[in-house]
Structure formats: C-alpha cells, structure tokens
C-alpha cells in the first residue's frame, strides 16, 4: 500500500508540473463548467429539464459550451435552466457562465460581466401566412399588428424603428410568440434573425414569408457573474473559438446561414 501511495503521489506531482503552465480555471465545481441556459430557443438550445437541472440539451449554445469547456481544459459540462432575465441580473449565480443569445448592452454590463462577442446578429421580421400584400418596407410594417418578446431587442426595435400605429403586442416567451404568429393574431414578429430563420426553415408551411432584417449589428456574448475569477480565461477561450472557426462550424450545423440573402428593411 505504501509503495502504491508513493507512486500515486509521484504521478500527482508530475501532473501538477505539466498543468502548471496553465493554472486550472476556477469554477464552481472543480473540473466542470456549469452553464446557465434558458430553454427553449429553436436551433440554439432545446432539451429536457427537471426543475432547474438540465438532463438533456442540444443546439448551437450547447455545443458552444462544450467547446468552451474543452478549450478551458475542463472535463465536464452541466447545464442549469433559468429564466432569461436572471442570466445577466446582479447577484451570485449557480453557474460559471451563461450562454443564451444574450446581446451585450451597456445596461446589462452594469449587472453582469461579458466576454468578447462570438456572434453578430440582426433582428428579423417573419410574417404570418395570411398577410397580404407582403410587407416590403418599414412603412408597410407600421400598419400591421407587430409582436415581440417582452424586454427583448426586438421589442425595442419595434418601438423605436418600426413604431407601428397600434402598440406592439409583447409576449413573455418565444413558443407563445410563435404560436400567435401561426394563428395570425400577430401579423409579423420581430425577433433575432437566426432564430426566425431556423424556425422558418424547419417548419416552412407554418409561417408566412421571412420579410427581411432590420440591421442592429447586436452581438451575443457569454455572460458571467460580476467579479468572476474566470472572466479573463473564458474571454480568451471565446476569442479562440471564433478565430479557429468553431463558431462558424456550429452556425452551419444548427442555424440557418443564408440570412445574408434577405433584404434589409428601410
């Protein structure tokens, strides 16, 4: 036994020496990246959760989290389900990072840390099937019943850029938002273009035309609790995943990538 212990000690020492070049990233659970998510979002993150414990998940965000963990030298990833707003609110959190199409804004920076952006997106406009004529301009949109997700960038764009004659209908979650678009209670929805594009591509006959995009150039970042010790390591890793093409590969795998061909609404 003694010999075995000595051998184990030696091995541990050797490992310690090898790893000393890059000290381990401080995480809540050592060796594991715990990731805050807000299921569901088509293409980005869907799955199964028991309370806040995610037992199965798939999508762009999920693969991105796994790539991030690998890049940080962590051996496992766990996902925690959360309301969207809590992912970047103030206070301590039961996760190391939050990945959920979180647009970096000055206001959100007051309550959370952000890494460098990994994806730049615009707002998309998806119409219901019965809308005629098909809107082509912002002026056309003004006359329609517009819907958006509560507290989203889309809601801001609806209010400030489109300014419809009837007030924008704000809906609390994406599935209900899209259901209202299917039934025609909403004539057009303004939401993150990659999500709308992926929804339309998967079930094309449930929606009307993807009218176009409204350029916002907003950027998704990985959100972290204020004062996180892992910020600089995670930030570097995110930059590396963008630089080495990982993000682009995941985009091709999970999201509709032909958004460049859509007209920009003016």
């Amino acid at each position: 036994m003694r010999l075995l212990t000595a051998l184990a000690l030696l091995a541990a020492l050797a490992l310690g020496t090898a790893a000393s070049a890059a000290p381990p990233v401080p995480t809540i659970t050592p060796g594991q990246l715990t990731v805050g998510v807000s299921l569901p979002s088509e293409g980005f993150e869907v799955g199964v959760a028991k309370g806040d414990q995610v037992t199965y998940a798939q999508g762009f965000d999920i693969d991105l989290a796994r790539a991030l963990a690998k890049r940080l030298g962590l051996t496992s990833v766990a996902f925690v389900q959360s309301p969207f707003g809590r992912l970047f609110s103030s206070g301590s959190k039961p996760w190391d990072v939050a990945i959920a199409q979180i647009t970096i804004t000055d206001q959100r920076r007051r309550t959370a840390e952000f890494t460098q952006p990994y994806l730049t997106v615009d707002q998309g406009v998806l119409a219901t099937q019965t809308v005629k004529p098909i809107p082509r301009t912002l002026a056309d949109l003004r006359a329609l019943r517009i819907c958006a997700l509560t507290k989203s960038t889309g809601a801001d764009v609806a209010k400030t850029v489109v300014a419809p004659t009837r007030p924008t209908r704000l809906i609390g979650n994406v599935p209900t938002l899209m259901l209202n678009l299917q039934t025609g209670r909403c004539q057009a929805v303004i939401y993150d273009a990659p999500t709308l594009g992926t929804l339309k591509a998967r079930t094309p006959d449930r929606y009307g035309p993807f009218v176009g995009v409204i350029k916002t150039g907003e950027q998704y970042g990985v959100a972290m609790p204020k004062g996180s010790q892992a910020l600089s390591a995670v930030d570097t890793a995110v930059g590396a995943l963008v630089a080495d093409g990982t993000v682009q590969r995941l985009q091709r795998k999970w999201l509709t990538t032909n958004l460049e061909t859509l007209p920009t609404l003016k």
Partner: protein
Amino acid sequence: MTRGYLVALVTTALAVAFAFPAGSSAAATLKVWFPQGEQLVSVDRPGSTAADAVAALLAGPTAAERKQGLRTYVPARTTLNDVTIVNGVARVDVSLQFVLGRDAQSLDARLAQLVHTVSGVEGARSVLLLVNGGTVYGMFPGIVTSRPITLKYLETPNVPASHTTAPPATAPVAGLLQAQQKLVSLGYLLPADADGKNGPQTQTAVLAFQKWEGLGRDGDLGPQTKAALATAEHPAPITKGPSGKRAELLLDRQVALAIEDNKVVRVIPVSTGKPSTPTPPGDFKVYAKIAKWWSTPFREWLLWAVPFNGGIAFHEFAEVPPYAASHGCARQFATTAHWLYDFAVVGMPVKVLSTSE
C-alpha cells in the same frame, strides 16, 4: 329513426353483450393510434389502463398492420417509465429516445400518436409529456410541450389552407396546339386546356404521358416525347373491372388512371409513398370526399382529399416530385386534384397495383 340505424344499434348491443359476458373483464380493449398515409388510424389492443395503451403504442404496429401501411414514429428503443393520471391530466414519463431526432415531421407525428392514444383512457383529457421525470422544452417544432397537450389542440388547424398557385399561362407556342389535341384524344389533357400555350395543365399532361410511356420525366415536350406522342395509343386500364367509375393507382409508373366503363378518362401523374412509407397495393373503395383535410400527425392541409384506405388518399400537395415521395398518399398537382375530386364518388373502387406491365 331509420330501420338501418335500428339494426345497427341492435347489432352493436349484441356485439357488446358478446364482448363483455357477465362476470368477465378479460375482453377490455383500447384504441392505439398509428399513422397510415397522412392521418392517424386506430387499431384495437387488449388492455384498459393508460399504461397499457402507451405500452401498446411503444410496441408498434404488427407485421400485418405494417403491410397495410401502418407505421410508428416512436423510436424503437423508447421505454415507458410511468403513467399517472391526476385531474384528467395524464403525465406520461418515457425514456429520452422519444424526443431524439431532427426530423420535424417524425417528432410531431409521434407526439400526436401519444396524445391520441392516451386521450380518453382512464378519464385523461390532456397529456403532459415527461422525459425521465423532466419537462421537455422545444424538442417538438411548433408545439409547446412544457404544458399538457389536448387532442383538440393537435386537431385544430393552425395554418391557413392555401392552394398551390400555378405559374401563369405563357405565350402561344408554335405547333403546340397539335400536340395538345393529341394529348386530349389520348386522355392526358382536358379539351378546354388545349390552348396552344405551355401552361401548367399541359406540363402536367406531358408528365403523365412520359410516366405512362416510360420516358424521361421532365414535363417538357422535347424531341423524344414528341416522337413518342406521334405513334402513341390510348392508354387502357391494366385490369378489367366493373362498369362505371373506378381508379387504378399504378405504383411503378407513378400515375393514376381515372376509368369509366373500362375506358381511361384521364391519366394523372402522382407521387405515391416513398420506399420507407410505401403505398400498400390492394383493392379499396373511396370512403369519403374531403375538400380540406387537416393532417393531425403532420400538421398540414391535404386539399381535395379522396381517401380510400384509412389515412391514404388522393390529395393536392405543394410538392409533387416525379418519383415516389409521400407518406403513402397519392399526391397530385393543383392541375388535377380538383378534377379527380369531382370525378370520384364515394364507393368508387380503387385498385392499387405495384406493377402494371
């Protein structure tokens, strides 16, 4: 009350009396729902509880039922953890396999199978799907599964029914009228559509002709098709049948023959079941005519539907490739679907043939 209704009632009463002899509970049966063509159809299974129903659903159709075109979209290794019914909500807890896969139609169809099979059993009015005890978020495109789902929700259309708008007729093409008249005389084109223009009706007729004659299927009146048309004879039914209206669906040629008094009235290009969901051959009868038929499992409209074998029907569809591509139905272009709907009568024989040589 009509006499026929009375007879039916008496017969039912007798059947029930035989099925449930006093003091026995062994004969209880449940209905389990599997897709056939574009709709769910039920089969009887022994059992009385929601757990029995789900277990029978997971087991899938029998070999004989599969031969009739029944199938399941529930993945093979899915297992049942638990079913509990509280206040009319059936909480059905299954293994992860149930939500796996990227095919939107397969996912939506298996959910419809489950909801339809469990609804009504042990007073269940809605179904809450759980996976190993967890709530399911966003795995079923367009359907919110974090709340209980009712059958009525799935049966309620949530998209408008729109006919496929064909491209407008083009300018007259020199010499086309003659070819059209030949297509009319052979039963591929309606007389009113011989207008000298290469419109959608003509393209459909040319495709029907190419399919019947075994030519390249492009719907274009090229030199080879023209040459064949010059010497072509009027198509004849493959089988001899009763006089009056009937139809033959020829799976190898991907055409349907509308037949009256053993003469082919019109040859219609169709796209039948793809290899994984083939259209079963056999003798059937048109049992309904439904102008707008909502497909509960696939959540789409079937227009000008003429069903003849459970969920298998002739119907209009936006995409009619020149090969077999459907879930088992005979898809048609907008150019023929309404015509066949008008031609068909309830009770009309439909013979599905795998070979027509």
